[in-house]
Structures are given as structure tokens and as C-alpha cells.
């Protein structure tokens, strides 16, 4: 069983193009300076319709995490145990991701992390995080 490839929409396409180029893109509102993720039509702070895409630093900290022992589907069975985490980006928004390139037991809340990418197909690369210090 293969992992299901995410299907970009017109709204999320710039994010996935960024991942394809191994960079994290999020939205920024030029009117109020607010950063947001996931992508939206309007700024969630001031409702401006002028939100722009920017390249994020790719750095953040672990807000919380869990080590998964019972995979969600058979497609994830080979990955067990794997870390599902919430990461707070330095720019402010939160994302869910996996923490990779370390032992699951090494992950801790507050740990600094930086982006890394897994190429799942020719078009789709999935953003993950790894320890960064």
C-alpha cells in the first residue's frame, strides 16, 4: 500500500511548488505583516485580500509531538515508530509534520528544527523537519 499523494488545489499550488523546489513558502499580509499557514484567500488577521507568498526561514520549534507505534494505515507501517509533531515556525504559524533524521526518543518539546524534504513523486515533495542546533 502506497502513501496517498497530496493533491494541490489552486489555493495551495504555490506551497507545493515551493516544496518541489525544497523551500517552504507561507503567506504574508503586506497590509498588517501577519504570516499565515495553511494558505487562504484573505489575511486571517485583517481580512486583506492582498496576501502574498514569501519564502519562510524554514526554522521553528517543536510545539508538541507524539511517537506513533500503531500506524494509521498499512502505508505507514514501515515507518513505525515515527514522530508526528506540531511545529511553530519562527514566523509564527503552526504546521503539522514529521520529525526525521533523528531517533524518535531524541525529540522534545521546544527543540529547534529546520525543514527538510522528501520527494514522493516527480511533482510532490513533502515537507518534514529535522533537528537543528
Amino acid at each position, binding site marked *: 500500500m502506497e502513501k496517498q499523494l497530496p493533491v494541490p488545489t489552486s489555493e495551495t499550488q504555490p506551497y507545493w511548488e515551493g516544496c518541489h523546489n525544497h523551500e517552504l513558502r507561507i503567506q504574508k499580509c503586506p497590509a498588517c505583516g501577519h504570516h499565515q499557514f*495553511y494558505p487562504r484567500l484573505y489575511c486571517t488577521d485583517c481580512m486583506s485580500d492582498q496576501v502574498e507568498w514569501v519564502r519562510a526561514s524554514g526554522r521553528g520549534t517543536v510545539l508538541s509531538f*507524539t511517537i506513533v*507505534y500503531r500506524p*494509521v494505515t498499512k502505508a505507514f507501517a514501515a515507518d513505525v515508530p515515527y514522530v*508526528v509533531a506540531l511545529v511553530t515556525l519562527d514566523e509564527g504559524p503552526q504546521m*503539522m509534520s514529521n520529525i526525521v533524521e533523528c531517533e524518535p526518543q531524541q525529540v522534545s518539546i521546544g527543540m529547534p528544527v529546520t525543514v527538510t524534504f522528501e520527494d514522493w513523486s516527480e511533482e510532490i515533495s513533502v515537507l518534514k523537519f529535522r533537528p537543528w542546533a
Partner: protein
Amino acid sequence: MESLRGKVAIVGAADTDVGVVPQFSTTQMYVNAAKRALEDAGITKNDVDGLITCNSFVEPYMYHAEMIAEYMQIFPRYCLNVATGGGTTLAIMHHAASAIANGVCNTVLITMADNMLSGLSRDLAIEAMSTAGHAQFERPYGPPIPAFYALIAQAHMHAYGTTSEQLAAVAVACRKHASMNPAAQMRDPITIQDVVNSRMIAQPLHLLDCSLVSDGGAAIILTSAERAKDFPHQPVYILGAGEGHSHEHISQAQSLTTSAAKEAGERAYAMAGLGPKDIDVAELYDCFTPVVVIELEDLGFCAKGEGGSFVENGRIELGGELPINTHGGLMSHCHPGHPGSMFSVTEAVFQLRGDCGPRQVKDAEIAFVHAQGGIMSTHCSMILGSGL
């Protein structure tokens, strides 16, 4: 806002058999629950002029409430299908009470059921649950539902020093109560050691920190407080109701350790003119053990961060300061999916009628019922009382 306080009462309540119930299809179970609740209320289906259901996962219909009405051949003036996940039951009651108080209809039947155990294979059920989470921004990371709640638990443990043993105390209390409830799916008592030694699912949640997969249904009948006096049982009045809604996806939550249960509870207490100290019994949503700990804090039964120590030493067990989930909860009574919190409502009704036998909370007059849906996303609180 005009208050709903004391304007509406529950006059009928019933559960179907729960646990493993292969003899009924899902739709049959909705109707079985409805028939039992009508009998409990001493009325016929023709007395029902409002019907609210929650769609079934196993046997869904595009117009589910209309389907149940058609199946039963009832012709309501108010017919609604509501879905706020585990919070649905109480959200439905809130809608129904508003409709009755505003004269939209007189007598509302709420029926909910699902066959998550017999209607789907276990693997299919878990597979189906894998569709939880944002398709592009959560699911690629492989979170099973327990992982979403594990993120909450880890954050609470990190912030407040809550321990696995404290979380386990919630499961132990629910099982103790289920052992006194012949209807419950899991009745063999367990210990804290049993919970923390059970298989790790998503750290820090063990198998016994997770709720059940079940078949089951339940129904209630609501009418105006004025009419309620003419029914065979002691009416159970809605004294307070409140909702709070904070997010859809856990990755968008503003806080992992404080939920919108806080707003829901505050709104319900304000309507009822009551506070946490007035509550005799609480039926709290317990899909995973940490949810109860956070609800106890957010609903004001203890201070933020003290939920872990609050659940220790039998305080939440029968005979303790605040008995919770006296039927056994989702942990041990049953969890058929969306209808899960219906059993909290019917149990509260049975407690306030004084009908619970060995698991009766002595002199219970005020019950607090809370349910949440999504991943701590949508919250609804109800304060129910045997008097006005």
C-alpha cells in the same frame, strides 16, 4: 439574549443494547432507540413534531433525518440533521431546546446510532478514521486519531507535569463505573498498572487510554417544561447550555492545553446561574484520557494544570467529590462514533431520576454533561437538573 433556562425538559430517554449488536442494521438501531424513548416517555410517534438525527457513518443518507422520519412514517414540522462530531448530541439538544422555546415545535425526538463495530471491519473502521485530518497538511504525516490527542496530552504533561499514571486514573474510574453497569461493553475492573502497561499506541497514550469501538444507539424526547409535567417520569430540565468552537484541525488550535470547553462551560454556568461546586455528577467526553483532564480544568472543577492531581485518589469515582462517567463513558460503556455522547445524556437523565441502582450518585439533583467533537474542536456543555 433570552435565556433557555428551565424552559425545556427531557421527558423520555433510552439506550439500545450496546457493545456488539450485530442483529440490527444501523437504521434499525436508530429506530429501536426511538421506539424505546417513546415508550419511556409514554407517547406515540404521532406526538412527535420535531426530529433531529446525526448522520450514520456506516449507513449514511443524504437527508438522514428525513430518512428516519420516512422509515418510521412520522411527519414532523421540524426536521434536522446535525453533525459536530462527538459534540453532536449536545449541539442537537441546544438546537432542539431553542426550537421548543421559540414555539417552532412542541415535542422533539433526537435519535442517534451507529454500528462502528459490526457494520465495519475493525481494519476498515480504523482505515476510515484515517480520513481525519487535513488532506494536504496533516494526513501526509500519518497521524492516527490517537496521535492527535497524544499531541494534546504531551503538551499538557510538559506544561503541568501531568503523568501517565494520572491519565490512567481516568480509565480506571470509567471501568469501575462500567463494572456496576450491566449494559456496559467492558466490565472487568482495571488498575493504573494495567493501563500504563498496555500497548503504546501513540506516546503517551496506551491502548487503555483510548475509548472503545462499538455498536449502539440512544434517543431522548424533549418538550416544554410546561408540558413536561404531564409525562410519566420526573422531568429533567435544561438549566444551562453553552457552546465553544475553536478550530477544525488540531494544527490550527490556538492552544493545545486550554480548549473551547472553557467558553462552553462558562456560557452554560451563566445561563444556569450555577457553578462547578453545585454539580453532583458529571458526564464528560472521554474519547481519550487526557480529554477528561483538560475538561475538568476548563469546566472549572479545578484550576488549569491541576487536572492530573484532581483525577487521583478516587475523587472522580462514585463516592468521590465529583463522580464522572457513571455509566462507564466512551472508555468502557460504549463508543459507536458520533452518538457517543448520547449515552452521557441518557445516563444523566437516569441519575437525576434516581434510577441507577448500585451506580446511583446519592441525591443527584444537578448533572453536568459535556461533549467535544473533532480534535477538541467543537464543545457543548449542558447543565441538567431534576428541579427548576
